[in-house]
């Protein structure tokens, strides 16, 4: 329990640091949101409209410390203000409207990559030097070294445009609306195939290699030799003795990846015009949309910290050594 509390204290401190950074960083960027908007809309905003814009955006001219105080107070009441680039939509609406798609894409890709990658890693390490072990790692590392967007564009071109097997864009067919029906869920899954595949292909190699390497180390342990000497079935040794002990690093990596899902697969979202927060973040940075930027960064940091905390708790269950100290 003491361990958990200590960790909790650490995460609260880390959270405070990140929300403070979150406050400072956007203000260090050159230009202010209104002049950025004037530059972006090039001639659409008349000079005499600038003052009114500043007023309606509620841009604060008060001292930085006062701004900081307002920022903290609002944050804890769940109010992140209005998005400037999508005025007058509240930041919370922009984020909550999109985050579901990001999570769907991120989770499904992560789960698929973790399950396939780790299974292959276990098998490759167990039959060392076998077919799987000698062929898969180089291929997957090769695929993994491709930039996300390149692979995504390749898939889009091959399976979307040339073969026409999968839709080219968006999360579901235009003109339909989300509902709990088999047809709609099927449509969403159909649209999810290409974006998810591009992420899985790139990330699977890492999981495979990580698992394979720890498995190899575990295989050399005495208790494996002991198990073999006892004449246990090979599958049982592989899964219950070796793989189980080799899981720990994978759990850590899984927890960390879980946190980063929220950041969104920006390039995948752009290539497949898939909805989500990744593209919003880029747009917010380009438009100097402070409130939206802060909201997104905050969501991402909170997700990373929460995921790490969850991993810490799981560790206490999985690894008795953690409990001991």
């Amino acid at each position, binding site marked *: 329990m003491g361990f958990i509390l200590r960790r909790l204290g650490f995460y609260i401190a*880390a959270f405070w640091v990140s929300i403070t950074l979150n406050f400072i960083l956007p203000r260090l960027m050159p230009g202010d949101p209104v*002049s950025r908007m004037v*530059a972006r809309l090039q001639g659409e*905003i008349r000079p*005499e409209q600038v003052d009114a814009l500043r007023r309606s955006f509620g841009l604060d001219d008060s001292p930085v410390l006062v701004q900081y105080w307002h920022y903290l107070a609002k944050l804890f009441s769940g109010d992140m203000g209005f998005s400037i680039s999508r005025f007058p939509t509240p930041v919370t609406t922009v984020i909550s409207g999109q985050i579901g798609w990001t999570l769907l894409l991120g989770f499904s890709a992560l789960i698929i990559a973790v399950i396939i990658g780790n299974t292959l890693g276990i098998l490759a390490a167990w039959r060392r030097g076998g077919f799987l072990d000698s062929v898969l790692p180089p291929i997957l590392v090769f695929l993994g070294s491709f930039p996300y967007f390149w692979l995504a564009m390749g898939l889009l071109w091959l399976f979307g445009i040339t073969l026409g097997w999968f839709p080219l*864009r968006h999360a579901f067919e*235009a003109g339909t609306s989300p509902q709990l029906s088999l047809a709609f869920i099927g449509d969403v899954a159909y649209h999810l195939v290409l974006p998810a595949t591009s992420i899985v292909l790139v990330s699977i190699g890492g999981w495979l290699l990580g698992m394979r390497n720890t498995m190899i180390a575990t295989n050399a342990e005495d208790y494996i030799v002991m198990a073999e000497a006892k004449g246990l079935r090979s599958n049982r040794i592989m899964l219950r003795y070796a793989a189980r002990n080799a899981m720990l690093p994978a759990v850590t990596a899984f927890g960390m990846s879980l946190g980063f899902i929220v950041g969104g697969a*920006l390039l995948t979202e752009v290539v497949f*015009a898939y909805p989500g927060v990744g593209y919003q973040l*880029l747009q917010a940075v380009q438009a100097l949309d402070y409130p939206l930027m802060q909201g997104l960064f905050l969501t991402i940091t909170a997700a990373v910290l929460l995921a790490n905390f969850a991993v810490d708790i799981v560790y206490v269950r999985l690894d008795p050594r953690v409990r001991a100290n």
Partner: protein
Amino acid sequence: MMALRTRLARFCAAAAAGALLLTGCGSGSQDPTAGSTNVAGSLDGKQLLTIPREDMGTFERNFNPFSNPDFPMTQQAIFESMLIFNPADGSTTPWLATDWEVAPDSKGVTYNLRDDVKWSDGKPLIADDVVVSFKLQREIRGGFDYIDTVTAVDPHTVKFDFNKPFSPALLDIGQQVIAPAHVWSTVEDPTAFANEDPVGTGPYTTVTNFQSQSFDLGRNPNYWQPDKQKIEGIRMRAFAGNDGANLAAANGDVDWAPQFIPNIEKSFVDKDPEHRFYWFPPTGSMINWQFNTAKAPFDDANVRKALSMAVDREQVTKIGMQGYTIPADCTGLSGAYDSWRDQSVVDACTWTKRDMEAAGKLLDGAGIKLGADGKRVLADGSPFEFDYSVGSTSSDWVSVGNVIAQNLAELGVTVNVAARDWGDVSAGYENGTFDSGIVWSAGAPTPYQFYSGMMSAQTVKPVGEQTFDNYHRFGDKRADALLEEFTAASDESEQKQIMNKLQALFSEDAPVAPLFPGPEWGAANTQRFTGWPNEDNPYATLSVRARTTVLVLTALAPVAG
């Protein structure tokens, strides 16, 4: 702590890399070999007009006509203005107003509204709607500072009184969209009101389906021109960048492609030349190379003219703008002001045509002589070298800068293309710390605003004070006098005469070096809809964000069968 920091750093690096890759993969990456077009759905005459929006990855429902920036189709299909000015042919179409009368002293204008216009909820359009709309517009978005009072004389007459003579007001006021008073006067916070179910006078006001990546607008049941609602409705689709939207256009998934498509002949038209076309009229805002005239030697008109003369505008438009626009002339006016252009100023024009010899003479005369190394030096002996500022994301304007730098090197002048973040660049413009840079100009129905921003001494702010107008900080009292005369002139021929004088003055002063008018991008597909504007029938541009868009929406007819 350590872990957090590295994680943050890793994240930021990833985000930065993402941004780089995005710009890196921006051009010419799509070359779909699929030659066939695949039009979704059958042609039963009920197909929706499908339009991509390339700079919004997702839509958030907000049909507030006073929001800035305005939401797609809000000011085009839902709300309408009293009149519509078409920059493509210079014509003005009466819309919600039948006619208007400018006060003889130009200190007011009276509009007579149509009496057959109904809001989409069935209530009639009245003068009070105009009054309330202007009140809200001035409160929320600002502008219209010259308006003193707006009065509803009777239900169909609305009178504007100004605090000074201002003849450009006619089109300026006339193009403001009108919202219903009976809805908006009860809204508590009009700035933040999302107006999810809009009541408008436009042809397509009914939101039939709204999703984050697409929304459909259906017919207004009470439209005042029911015979012009030939199409069933409009479908907007969201794209997180040009690439996705261009792919949709190339694939035939959208009917209208108002975004920039590189190499459009090959990547769009050639896929189906029978149905696809593009039209880029030079009616956008004039793109200028501006010099900070608060800094020597840019305060000398001859130096500015010499620099302008060294620029090969044919090469600039060919290389920088892929040949999609035309070189500017000495009036500085874009194609939107063709009806105002004074041909005699254009004919007498010297400093927008390339002439290295004359440019060299002008610089010699200004005391900027050639040094021994072939580089020009200022009177104080320092080399004539300065920055050309441009936002790094505007890759076309960066190429323009590279062409200019090469051209100027031949003259012995060193121009450094300083491509930085737009926020940084515009901050330099606003505070007057830049040397030179590429800049857009104000867009308005009359050249008044353009010349006011270019030459009016009243708009000049000292260096260090933030301004959003006249970044180059040039003022000529003669221009102020002419501009004031123009605002007081209610007679059209008188206005033309004054405008001719302003053009001559611009040609004399060369406050900036005009490069080329920005093209109004637009491409369309006639496979599912016909009746598009084009070069032979320029009743509107192919823009989907202009006031003229409603003219296209009310002209298109579906292809059936």
